């Protein structure tokens, strides 16, 4: 059963966003980690990098493939989960907590509101299968 926490926002590229004021924490969803398989490396941006909406900010390398990860919201990277490359399996085991990737200071804090809710994301997933 795919885990989809209710307090988060989701993109159709299978990223999740947790909003705290104007800061968005970004990671990939449980569905995405399952589809990718065992994650071995995450290519991260650096603090200070700026991205528009839906720009590739890094990539996730699994034993099966390399997939780009996209910014669901525009902003400047303020923190990167550097430690995750020591334990990349955290992305598989705890995609919504220890497996987070970057924190972004949003250009437009309202942007996350336009993303999918947990219910909408679940509907989106079932419409795709």
């Amino acid at each position, binding site marked *: 059963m795919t885990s989809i926490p209710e307090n988060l926002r989701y993109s159709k590229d299978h990223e999740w966003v947790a909003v705290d004021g104007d800061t968005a924490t970004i990671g990939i969803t449980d569905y995405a980690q399952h589809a990718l398989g065992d994650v071995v*490396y995450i*290519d991260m941006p*650096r603090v200070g990098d700026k991205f528009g909406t839906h720009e590739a900010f890094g*990539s996730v*390398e699994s034993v099966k*493939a*390399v997939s*780009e990860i996209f910014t669901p919201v525009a902003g400047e990277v303020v923190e990167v989960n550097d430690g995750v490359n020591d334990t990349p399996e955290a992305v598989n085991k705890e995609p919504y907590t220890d497996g987070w990737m970057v924190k972004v200071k949003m250009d437009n804090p309202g942007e996350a509101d336009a993303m999918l809710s947990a219910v909408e994301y679940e509907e989106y997933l079932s419409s795709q299968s």
Partner: protein
Amino acid sequence: MRYIPNSPEERDEMLAVVGLKSADELFRSVPKEVQLGRALNVTDPLAESEVIAALESMAAKNTAATKPSFIGAGVYSHYSPTIVDHLIQRSEFFTSYTPYQPEISQGTLQYIFEFQTLICQLTGMEVANASMYDGSTAMAEAYLMAQRVTRRDKIVVAKSVHPEYREVARTYTQHGAAEIVEVAFDEKTGRIADLAALDDKTAALVVQSPNFFGCVEDLEKLADAAHAIGALLIVVVTEAISFGLLKSPGECGADIVVGEGQSWGVPMSFGGPHVGIFATQEKFVRQMPGRLCGVAYDKNGNRGFVLTLSTREQHIRREKATSNICTNQGLIALAATIYMETMGKKGLQEVAMQNAQKAAYAKQRIAEINGYSIAFDAPTFNEFVVRGPLAATEILEKLRTDAGIVGGLALSKYYDGHDTDFLVCVTETNSREQIDSLVSALAG
């Protein structure tokens, strides 16, 4: 083997299908004025023995091949043990291209792994790839890698790096973001002099050691200077035999070591094919270009060789790949591997020592000749620049015609203000008699 295996009848049949009368009509879209309009000027068919005789007579015109030669400058005359040529001609190695189903070719992957291991040991680095096309393209790839690692675009390269390497790297990187700044060498020492161009936009400092003038650079000092501003130090080595004697670039603090492996048992062959080497530190491995072979164990504990970290490569990551190099210089890397393993640690040290000693002898004798001096005073390995009493091109021409000696390379081809300078290389293939005759010809 015939490359056009169809008969005249079959050709007529195909022409009829497309509605043409002759093969010439296929080319009617090519303007008449650029068409040759006659048959190629080639001889009538010859018997095999006649072909061999014709080729032998052409080869005999290459008189430089049989004269004592003191030219190096990036391509070096070294002795290659007969085992190298013998082994690379084994049928198992005939298709030496990196296999597309790599793990089925354990023998190929094993020698690639051994090649990488030897490169790491000699350069003092942690990872090396399965080889590049040649030294100059390896240097260009190092520029690009430094840009990826540092996210900066300025490349500071010494003018004492091989001029043709710098030209290749300029061509190779011209459509990217690299801003290449070439910096001067010290006219007294022959070493890189001007580090003022290093700043916080610099991705890499690029030096060759021994450099184009044969001078050994002070790599530790240069590594400190590069690292102080957050740039990488790229060390280029065109004479791989020098690894047998000099402190490795890795020990001196290099971040990327690139070079040419031709000296390891590979014939000069008019400039190629040769083999590029590329080594770096493990922390940068994901930004490294090229194939990488690793060792792995299956569930029963059996050792096997695999292509590893392929996710950097073009066939997986497409336009995001670290490089469009998706292959390696298989056969030549094999030759280099067999050479290094045949020579062994002691052999590589011994040949390097012979080069250094013979060159030191030549350098000393030439410096004693009236009117001649050594242009730069930094320590050298097997090459050095001689300053003569008149234009180097004249000196070299006279050596060639009067004494039958290829005496070196005139620097005026590449450097302004160095008309009387020429680069002399002495390897283990130059006998003492050859060196003495060079000295007496210069003195005479």
